[in-house]
């Protein structure tokens, strides 16, 4: 047995030495707790040897020798007989020490002279013929207990050498309390490394009725060697537990922090699909104020219609051990509709059962909207291509027919009635042309920038809608400086203004009023650019907040039967292409109406002669 295994703290249970280890040339060191157990141990040791016919040498105090003798007799050992034929030799420990101790240290020579002849003599008395001697020495114990630790160790060493040479089974004893302080720990180490086979031993016998006692001694031995280490270990374990607890708290806090930092709505559901937990961001997203508003409610009930079926399906998937997922719309506590991407996963207990479920929902409303816009943009592009094709194919015949009607009408001698009909045809055709421009929508002014008179522009636009205005008996009030002009694309400005006018007419009730005002101004927000502001107001129905939010979204329309949903979107982009911007105010109720207002910069004056020539030639 390696002595190290006895001294390190983690070897809490030292193995009991085997019979073989004890039988020859071994050196065992019991740790003695009290006299009773010491004597019990010693009588086992000595009795075992004498009983087996071996020789036994006992060097002990007077009291212990007497007590041992008494105990051996109780074990039916023939002590006087053994003494008589020299198999049992008992000597006084104090006297023996006096024979070889010099200046507090055992002298090697004197020790040999004192002990060897006795051992040799004992060998001769052995009945077993093995010539083995079992020796017990209390001298080491005495030295140790009186604080001569180095001397005790030295003596132990000398015994060790002797034991090896003479095949003696030696047992020494140490008081337990001698090993309870850390300072002696090192000494203990030395003790065990002092001599070859030093083994910790309790007893050489293994009779079953001694089990309790063996156990006691063993535990005492363990206690002696490891009590300090155990204390240290306990402290270390305590520190580790505190550290682990702190770590766990940090982990819990971290997990909580992570869950609550996420924008996602994290929920824990029980096996019935009822809410056990909802993360604060989830509560906020669903516009609940208290978690109690949702706890215990069935999760699938948060969904409606087909989404509820999808939710139930996903829940079933997760309950079956898989991952359930779907996308759906969910109404918040205040009725806001949001799109969610949901994943629901099972949480298993240690035995593998699905214990609860975790549902993580991501708000994909923005993404959905973006996707819808992308789809709309694609529609728009397709519509644009179609419009370009139609515009091209329609404008040429329109041009031809317009010309032909004019020619027919101006042919001399045309009957008055025919002329009137041709006039009507001409006007209807003008409507077709207007319609082509408006509903095909994507009017692009091919011309270069030019000076555009705003008053004329307004008049042109109102002329376009003259019939509509008249039918609805809408009054128009125009305020515009006749000299007001900007340098830009007339066609696009006209398109923008006519779109706004058409909307104002549609919003107006019969007998309503439309105000049109244009004035020179500066754009305060954009570097004091000079330009004009055209404001168009109606006292029509006004817009709901929902409509106001979406009026510039392509294909959004409040007039699904006649509208394309691109008028304001086109208008805004036309104005922005000119470097301007469009704003609006609208309200419903008592003072219902809408005010559309846009600013367009005056534009750079180009004064090259060529350009002038082209414009005015």
């Amino acid at each position, binding site marked *: 047995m390696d002595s190290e295994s006895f001294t390190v703290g983690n070897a809490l249970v030292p193995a009991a030495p085997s019979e073989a280890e004890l039988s020859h040339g071994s050196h065992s060191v019991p740790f003695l707790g009290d006299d009773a157990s010491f004597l019990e141990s010693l009588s086992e040791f000595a009795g075992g040897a004498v009983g087996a016919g071996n020789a036994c040498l006992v060097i002990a105090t007077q009291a212990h020798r007497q007590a041992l003798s008494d105990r051996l007799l109780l074990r039916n050992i023939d002590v006087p007989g053994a003494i008589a034929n020299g198999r049992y030799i008992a000597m006084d420990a104090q006297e023996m020490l006096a024979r070889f101790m010099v200046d507090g240290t055992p002298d090697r020579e004197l020790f040999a002279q004192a002990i060897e002849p006795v051992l040799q003599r004992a060998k001769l008395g052995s009945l077993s013929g093995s010539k083995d001697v079992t020796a017990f020495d209390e001298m080491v114990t005495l030295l140790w207990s009186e604080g001569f630790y180095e001397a005790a160790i030295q003596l132990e060493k000398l015994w060790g050498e002797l034991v090896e040479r003479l095949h003696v089974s030696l047992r020494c004893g140490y008081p337990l309390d001698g090993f309870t302080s850390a300072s002696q720990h090192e000494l203990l180490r030395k003790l065990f490394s002092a001599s070859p086979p030093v083994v910790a031993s309790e007893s050489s016998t293994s009779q079953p009725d001694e089990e309790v006692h063996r156990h006691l001694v063993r535990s005492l031995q363990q206690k002696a060697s490891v009590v300090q280490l155990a204390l240290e270990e306990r402290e270390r374990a305590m520190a580790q537990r505190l550290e682990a607890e702190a770590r766990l708290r940090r982990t819990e806090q971290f997990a909580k922090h992570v869950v609550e930092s996420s924008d996602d709505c994290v929920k824990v559901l029980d096996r019935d699909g009822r809410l056990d937990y909802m993360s604060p961001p989830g509560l906020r997203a669903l516009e609940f104020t208290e978690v109690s508003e949702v706890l215990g409610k069935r999760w699938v009930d948060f969904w409606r219609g087909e989404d509820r079926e999808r939710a139930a399906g996903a829940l079933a998937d997760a309950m079956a051990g898989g991952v359930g997922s779907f996308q759906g719309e969910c109404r918040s506590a205040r009725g806001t509709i949001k799109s969610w991407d949901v994943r629901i996963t099972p949480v298993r207990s240690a035995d593998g059962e699905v214990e609860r479920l975790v549902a993580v929902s991501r708000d994909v409303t923005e993404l959905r909207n973006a996707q819808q816009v992308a789809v709309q943009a694609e529609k728009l592009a*397709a519509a644009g*291509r*179609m419009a*370009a*094709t*139609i*515009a*091209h*194919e*329609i*404008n*040429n*015949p*329109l*041009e*031809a027919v*317009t*010309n*032909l009607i*004019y*020619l*027919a009408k*101006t*042919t*001399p001698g045309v009957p008055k009635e025919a002329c009137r009909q041709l006039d009507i045809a001409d006007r209807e055709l*003008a409507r077709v*042309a207007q319609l082509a421009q408006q509903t095909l929508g*994507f009017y*692009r*002014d*091919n*011309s*270069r920038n030019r000076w555009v008179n705003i008053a004329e522009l307004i008049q042109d636009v109102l002329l376009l809608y003259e019939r509509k205005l008249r039918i609805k008996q809408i009054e128009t009030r125009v305020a515009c400086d006749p000299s007001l002009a900007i340098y830009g694309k007339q*066609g696009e400005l006209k398109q923008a203004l006519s779109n706004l006018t058409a909307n104002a007419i549609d919003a107006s009730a019969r007998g309503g009023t439309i105000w049109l005002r244009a004035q020179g101004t500066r754009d305060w927000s954009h570097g004091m650019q000079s330009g004009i502001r055209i404001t168009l107001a109606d006292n029509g129905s006004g817009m709901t907040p929902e409509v106001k939010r979406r009026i510039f979204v392509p294909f959004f329309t409040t007039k699904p039967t006649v509208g394309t949903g691109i008028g304001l979107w086109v208008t805004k982009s036309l104005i922005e292409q000119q470097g301007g911007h469009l704003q609006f105010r609208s309200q419903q109720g008592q003072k219902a109406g809408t005010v559309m207002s846009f600013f367009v910069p005056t534009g750079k004056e180009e004064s090259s002669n*060529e*350009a002038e020539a*082209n*414009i005015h*030639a």
Partner: protein
Amino acid sequence: MIDKRINLLVTTIVRVVVEGAPGHLFDGHFPKENGSPLFGPESGLFPKDGKQRRVLVVDDESLIADSVAAILNRNGYAAISRYSGVDAIQSIHEQCPDIIVSDVVMPDLNGIQLAKTVRSICPNARIVLFSGNVDTASLLEDASLEGYFFEILPKPVHPLHLLKALGS
């Protein structure tokens, strides 16, 4: 006195299709009528007297070219029509017009190319383009990068508007 029947010179089908979609939206069917040509002698050379302003009208759709020329002739101009850019250049080599009114998108030589040529051969001629096609914008932009600026009218141009634009 001008006395002409209004006749379509060719059968015209306007087909409206949606790109990438099967089939088409609708066909506009303009059947050719039998009879004499719609427009007469003004497609020859300009009159020699020189009092009237000479206008060269160019459009690959002959009906448009002829009808515009007829309208102008009826309003004091001496107008002739051509149905291609190449023919138009042939014509201006013979005699410079005072005004050239031309379509932009034409098969062989487009209106912009024609206008540039006119600018070099007849520097005093006024050039008015008209177009019903949105692609025109990019053609004009290209031309403007080269330093050419042309007046352009959107199709359909009402005859009264055209006459106004030409300053009559």
